C-alpha cells in the first residue's frame, strides 16, 4: 500500500494517519533510507544529483519510490563514490551503501517472497555484526580500552567540548591542553624529549574511563541480545538499542549512523513489537533534533 495523496484530494489528517497505518515495512524502509542518503549521504556532487533526481521522480510519481531499478542505480552510484573516497569515508557510509543494496533486493523480491522477513533478517544480522564486531575491536584496542581515546577526545576534539562541559570537564584544562598540543605540532616550537605533560584532571580521566567501559559493555549487550531471536531477548535488545540511539547521538554527531540504526531496529521490531515501531519513528525525530546547535547553547551556560 503506497502512502501518498491522489491528485485532487484534500488533505485529511485522519486519512493520512490511516494510510500510514496501512503502509508496509518496505514503504517505511524505502522512505527512511532515501532520507538517510538525502540528509546524511555523501557530499559528492554525483550522489547528491542522483538522490535529488530520485526524489524529484518520487514527487512527480510516488510509486517510483518502489522502483528496484532506481534503487539499483542509487546503489551503484553510491558504490562508485564510496570507492573513490574509500580512504576517508566514515565507517557508517560503508554500511549505508550495503543497506542500499539490501533495499534494492527487498524491492526485487517483493510480491514474490516475504520482503518484510528478508529485511528483518538482514537488519538483525547487521545489528549483531555491527555491535559485536565493534565491541570486540574496542576490547582489543589498547588505546581505546585504556581510556586514552576518550580522554583525548574530551580535551582536544571540539565536537566533545560541550559534552565535556555538561559533565564537569574543566574547560580551562581543555583549553590549555589544546594550546599545548597545538604548540607541540608547530614547526616553531621544540619540546625537550618531544614529550609534554598535559593538564588533564582526575575527573576527566574518570569520565573517559566510564564512557569507554559503558561503550564496550552496551555494544556487547545489544549485539548479543539480538542473537537468540527470542521474544524476551529481542524486547530487551530493542530497549537497549533505543537507549543507545537516544543517548549516543546527542554527544557524538554521527547522525547518519544513528538514522541507520533506527531503520535497522524498525525492521527487526516491525512484526513482533508494533508499539516499538512508534519508539523507532520517534527516534528518527530525535536524531534530527540532535542536529540543533545545543553545543553552542551549553557552552554559553
Amino acid at each position, binding site marked *: 500500500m503506497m502512502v501518498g495523496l491522489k491528485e485532487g484530494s484534500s488533505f485529511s489528517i485522519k486519512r493520512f494517519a490511516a494510510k500510514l497505518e496501512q503502509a508496509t515495512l518496505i514503504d517505511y524502509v524505502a522512505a527512511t533510507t532515501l532520507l538517510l542518503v538525502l540528509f546524511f549521504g555523501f557530499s559528492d556532487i554525483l550522489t547528491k544529483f542522483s538522490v535529488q533526481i530520485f526524489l524529484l521522480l518520487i514527487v512527480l510519481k510516488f510509486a517510483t519510490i518502489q522502483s528496484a531499478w532506481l534503487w539499483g542505480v542509487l546503489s551503484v552510484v553510491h558504490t562508485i563514490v564510496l570507492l573513490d573516497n574509500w580512504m576517508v569515508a566514515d565507517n557508517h557510509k560503508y554500511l549505508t551503501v550495503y543497506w542500499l543494496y539490501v533495499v534494492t533486493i527487498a524491492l526485487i523480491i517483493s510480491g514474490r517472497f516475504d520482503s518484510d522477513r528478508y529485511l528483518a533478517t538482514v537488519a538483525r544480522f547487521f545489528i549483531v555484526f555491527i555491535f559485536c564486531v565493534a565491541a570486540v575491536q574496542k576490547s582489543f584496542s589498547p588505546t581505546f580500552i585504556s581510556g586514552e581515546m576518550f580522554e583525548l577526545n574530551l580535551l582536544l576534539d571540539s565536537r566533545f567540548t560541550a559534552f565535556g562541559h555538561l559533565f564537569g570537564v574543566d574547560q580551562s584544562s581543555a583549553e590549555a591542553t589544546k594550546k599545548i*598540543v597545538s604548540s607541540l605540532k608547530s614547526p616553531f616550537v621544540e619540546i625537550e624529549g618531544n614529550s609534554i605533560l598535559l593538564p588533564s584532571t582526575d575527573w576527566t580521566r574518570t569520565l573517559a574511563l566510564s564512557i569507554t567501559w559503558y561503550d564496550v559493555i552496551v555494544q556487547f549487550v545489544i549485539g548479543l541480545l539480538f542473537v537468540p531471536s527470542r521474544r524476551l531477548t529481542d524486547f530487551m535488545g530493542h530497549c537497549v538499542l533505543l537507549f543507545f540511539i537516544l543517548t549516543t547521538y546527542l554527544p557524538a554527531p554521527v547522525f547518519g549512523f544513528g538514522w541507520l540504526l533506527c531503520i535497522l531496529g524498525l525492521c527487526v521490531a516491525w512484526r513482533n513489537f508494533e508499539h516499538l515501531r512508534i519508539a523507532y519513528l520517534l527516534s528518527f525525530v530525535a536524531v534530527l533534533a540532535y542536529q540543533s546547535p545545543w553545543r553552542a547553547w551549553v557552552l554559553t551556560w
Partner: protein
Amino acid sequence: MGMFASADSLITRYAKIFIVLENGDKVAIENLSKDLKTMLDNALYYPTDLNFRELAKALRNATYHGESNKRPIVIFDNQGKYLSGSGRAYFVADARSDQGVSALPETWLLEIEYWKANYDPRTRVFTTSLQRSFSFKGQKQ
C-alpha cells in the same frame, strides 16, 4: 564512538611541511587551503609514499604567501615552560592550491615530516615521534 575506535586519529597524527631554499633557509608552511588540507588529511590517514607524493605534487603547484621576516624557533621543557631560543629561525608561508605567480624559485626541495603522538593517561604525558621524513625535489609544474 565509531565502529573501529582508537586514539590513533587525526588528533594524534600531524605533519610539518617545509620548503628548503637554495641557500639552505627553510620556509615552514603554516596554513593550507581547504583542498590542500584535504590532501594532507588523506596522507595522514594513509601515510603511504604515494599519498605524500600526491600532496607534494599539489604543493609544488601551489601559490605561497609569506612573511619576509623569519620567525624564531623556541624551546620549551616538558612542563610547557619556556627554556630558551634555539638560535634558529624559519620563514613562514601559507599555501593555496590556486595556481598563480609564486614568489619562490622554481626549483626547491620540499620536506614533509610525518609525526605521530601517543598519550599515556596514567602519567598524562603526550609524546610525539617522527615517523617518516619525505624529501621531494622538482621544478614547478
